[in-house]
């Protein structure tokens, strides 16, 4: 390469503060970013990919320091610049967008003013010119009525709109480099597709260099020109997208790719010969937001005539975008929300007609696993307490319950000694295992899992899914699996129900729903899955998964 690269990172090492789990956040990192190129940086959480991005932006937390190496922007070492020039670079030549659009904008400032700020500090435009530019930018990222939207506060906008505002803000002074730190992870699959297309489009038009951080190989397959794989602060593999995706060399890359949920996993067809465990009939639920004695609030229909049957041993997947009412149905089944009308029949008994004391015995039969393993376990209780509380409340002897809890912990793949420890001593995946053990302690017949793996890294995700799959066979569990990720649903579910705006628009065997979708919304969802064009190379599919597939077909 003869021209100087846009960004040239050489032997970058960043020290972590003493007492961290490793001495360096990133170690001896070398890579370049060329104009007009999308470089995807892939790795699990804690691999140092965000730290690298923050170092380029000069946004490192105070506790960590760059100990050696340099970052060159068009030939100039960024670290050698005085603070004022670094600031001019930041937001001016190098811009960044973040993962959480819901929190990345100042809630008390109009979005137009937030974009205006960039222009104020990086250009000499006057007020009127800046205003025109803000409107132009908002229009260029595909936001409707930009002149009106400019005066809105962030809380009025959806996640996708906020991310567009962030992109508009990043593009304000036409930077050479855009750093995107998991910009679509928090978004719905259809919104993700739109944002990815927007980024690609802008990148191609302006010949920007984009450093795109992600953990999702689907996204990588969709947009990357080159890929860098990071593990524990080092780049273990770097190359063109074609090479890394189809001929991964490093074992870690292969491991990551192997953990990617496959769109259509070969599962046996579920036969409905067995008894229905739970039937929801015409369940409706409307939430009323705001409003007072005299003023009517806003109505949100989260459930409209929902009907669904879960048979013994069946896993029913509930898929749809956020706000489609998936969780409302799940919570109604567990008894956390009371629907306005309809029936929820558990082995023939309508749970909704029961009084509180009469409903209580049924609670143990339907248990829930929540999304966020960091928030769903009481931090002040030991794991043993957390697991035994349910059985003890149902009259089991404490000692016996604790013995059972230890057995459950080993069942979910943890050491029995975990019972004496506290949740914060465990990683996210381990915590989710604890949540599953807690749910199983009551020997439920039905498990409602509300996005149980969406807060986890892809390899951990695969482990937890394998665990659920294994438990299902061993304990003959029925499961309602709520997820927004269709790839996961395809892998684990027998039956799929697609929800949109409080309605089930399509329901049927997984193979049919994915193979031959009837409803246009289902097709939209399937079409939005990133990386459809890429098939995981046959030789990296792990042995265990293949044997599971064999067992299913046996």
């Amino acid at each position, binding site marked *: 390469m003869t021209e100087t690269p846009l960004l040239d990172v050489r032997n970058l090492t960043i020290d972590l503060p003493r007492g961290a789990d490793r001495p360096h956040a990133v170690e001896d990192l070398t890579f370049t970013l060329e104009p007009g190129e999308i470089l995807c940086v892939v790795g699990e959480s804690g691999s140092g990919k965000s730290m690298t991005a923050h170092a380029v932006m000069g*946004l490192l937390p105070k506790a960590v320091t760059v100990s050696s190496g340099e970052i060159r922007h068009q030939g100039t070492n960024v670290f050698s610049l005085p603070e004022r020039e670094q600031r001019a670079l930041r937001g001016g030549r190098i811009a960044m967008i973040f993962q959480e659009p819901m929190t990345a904008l*100042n*809630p008390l400032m109009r979005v137009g003013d937030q974009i205006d700020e960039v222009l104020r500090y990086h250009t000499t435009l006057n007020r009127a010119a800046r205003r025109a530019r803000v409107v132009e930018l908002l229009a260029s990222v595909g936001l409707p009525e930009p002149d009106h939207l400019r005066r809105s506060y962030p809380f009025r906008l959806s996640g996708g709109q906020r991310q567009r505002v962030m992109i508009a803000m990043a593009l304000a002074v036409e930077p050479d480099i855009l750093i995107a730190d998991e910009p679509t992870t928090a978004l719905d699959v259809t919104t993700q597709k739109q944002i990815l297309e927007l980024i690609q489009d802008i990148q191609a038009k302006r010949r920007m260099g984009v450093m795109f951080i992600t953990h999702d190989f689907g996204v990588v397959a969709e947009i990357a020109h080159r890929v860098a794989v990071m593990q524990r602060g080092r780049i273990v593999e770097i190359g063109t997208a074609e090479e890394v995706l189809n001929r991964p060399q490093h074992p870690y890359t292969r491991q990551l790719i192997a953990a990617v949920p496959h769109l259509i996993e070969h599962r046996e067809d579920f036969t409905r010969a067995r008894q229905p465990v739970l039937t929801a009939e015409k369940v409706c639920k409307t939430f009323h937001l705001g409003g007072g004695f005299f003023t009517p609030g806003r109505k949100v229909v989260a459930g409209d005539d929902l009907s669904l049957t879960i048979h013994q041993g069946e896993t029913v997947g509930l898929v749809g975008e956020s706000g489609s009412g998936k969780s409302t149905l799940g919570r109604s089944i567990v008894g956390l929300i009371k629907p306005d009308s309809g029936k929820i029949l558990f082995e023939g008994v309508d749970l909704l007609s029961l009084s509180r004391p009469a409903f209580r015995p049924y609670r143990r039969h339907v248990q829930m696993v929540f999304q966020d393993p960091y928030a769903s376990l009481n931090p002040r209780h030991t794991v043993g307490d957390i697991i035994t509380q349910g059985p003890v409340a149902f009259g089991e002897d404490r000692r016996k319950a604790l013995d059972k809890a230890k057995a459950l912990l080993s069942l979910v793949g943890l050491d029995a000694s975990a019972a004496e420890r506290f949740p914060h001593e465990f990683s996210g995946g381990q915590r989710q295992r604890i949540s599953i053990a807690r749910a199983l302690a009551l020997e439920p017949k039905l498990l409602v899992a509300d996005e149980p793996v969406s807060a986890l890294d892809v390899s951990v995700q695969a482990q937890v899914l394998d665990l659920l799959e294994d438990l299902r066979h061993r304990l003959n569990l029925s499961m309602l699996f709520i997820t927004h990720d269709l790839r996961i649903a395809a892998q684990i579910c027998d039956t799929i129900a697609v929800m949109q705006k409080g309605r089930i628009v399509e329901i049927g065997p997984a193979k049919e729903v994915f193979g031959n979708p009837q409803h246009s919304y289902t097709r939209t969802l399937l079409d939005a899955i990133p990386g459809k064009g890429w098939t995981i190379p046959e030789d990296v599919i792990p042995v265990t998964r293949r044997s599971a597939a064999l067992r299913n077909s046996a």
Partner: protein
Amino acid sequence: MPRIALFISQRLVKAVFVVLAIAVFNFFLVHAAPGDPAAVMAGEAGAADAKFVEQLRQQFGLDRPLYEQLGTYMSKVVQADLGYSYRQQRPVFDLLMDRLPVTLSLTLTAFVLALLGGVALGTLAAMRAGTWSDTAITVVGLTAYATPIFWIGLMLILLFSVNLGWLPAFGTETIGAGYTGWEAFLDKAKHLVLPVTTLGLFYMAVYTRLTRASILEVRDMDFVKTARAKGLPEWRIVSVHILRNAILPVITVAGFQAGHLIGGSILIETVFALPGIGRLAFEAVLQRDYQVLLGIFLLTSVVVVVFNLLTDLIYSLVDPRIEVAP
């Protein structure tokens, strides 16, 4: 704007009912205490003759049934007549108006200074968290918060009045000096310095701690990172992005405390011999001066209601997510 006008008028209507309800409640509360003004006056006169006491009661209307007294009281209250203090031989309204300026000039000045100083110091401490200046501010704040307020007052008098002789120790003006105009104002201001400092220090400590904690929380939020990534100068990040978000809990607490400004300065008024509402309330309790006591209670409740309304308004101005909903 009509939205806000609607909000205010609806809230005011509600406030009237709240205040009236409080007035009734106060009436019973005061009468639940043993003893009455007649007994206290007779006792002080040294003529504890049962007949004399009875005559006093008749004169004050205390022999009437309680509901009748309540009726008389409430019908007067709605006409803004707070009654007559037989003790002081003056209408209660006049008494309150006499004392109110002293208390208000003391508490409002202390409150505003404490708020400004507290937010400034808290911000400074938070932005330099972990350094010596943070530690110094935290230690001073904690000391001011934990030390009894009257003791601080006494120590300040000892230092600035007795030893240094810079500032007057008590009263609201130099008696017999005959100052007029600007000089009179300066004289009064000088008298206020020590009481305002004493009271303000306590409040300032509260706001400093609150602001510091709130900023430390906001400082790590995502939108602050966004602001940094935009390449804004540090002062702009602190003032526009961090402080404005961090100030919200401070407003909540400040609005709550502002409601207590009228009654909250008894100690200060006592230490610095200021003829304010707090002292008046204290004396009225000792003398079972029902009318005065009820007047003070009513005044206090009005102030609380007004400041609550103000807080809500300020909140809706600062935070667009909160809409004024009547």
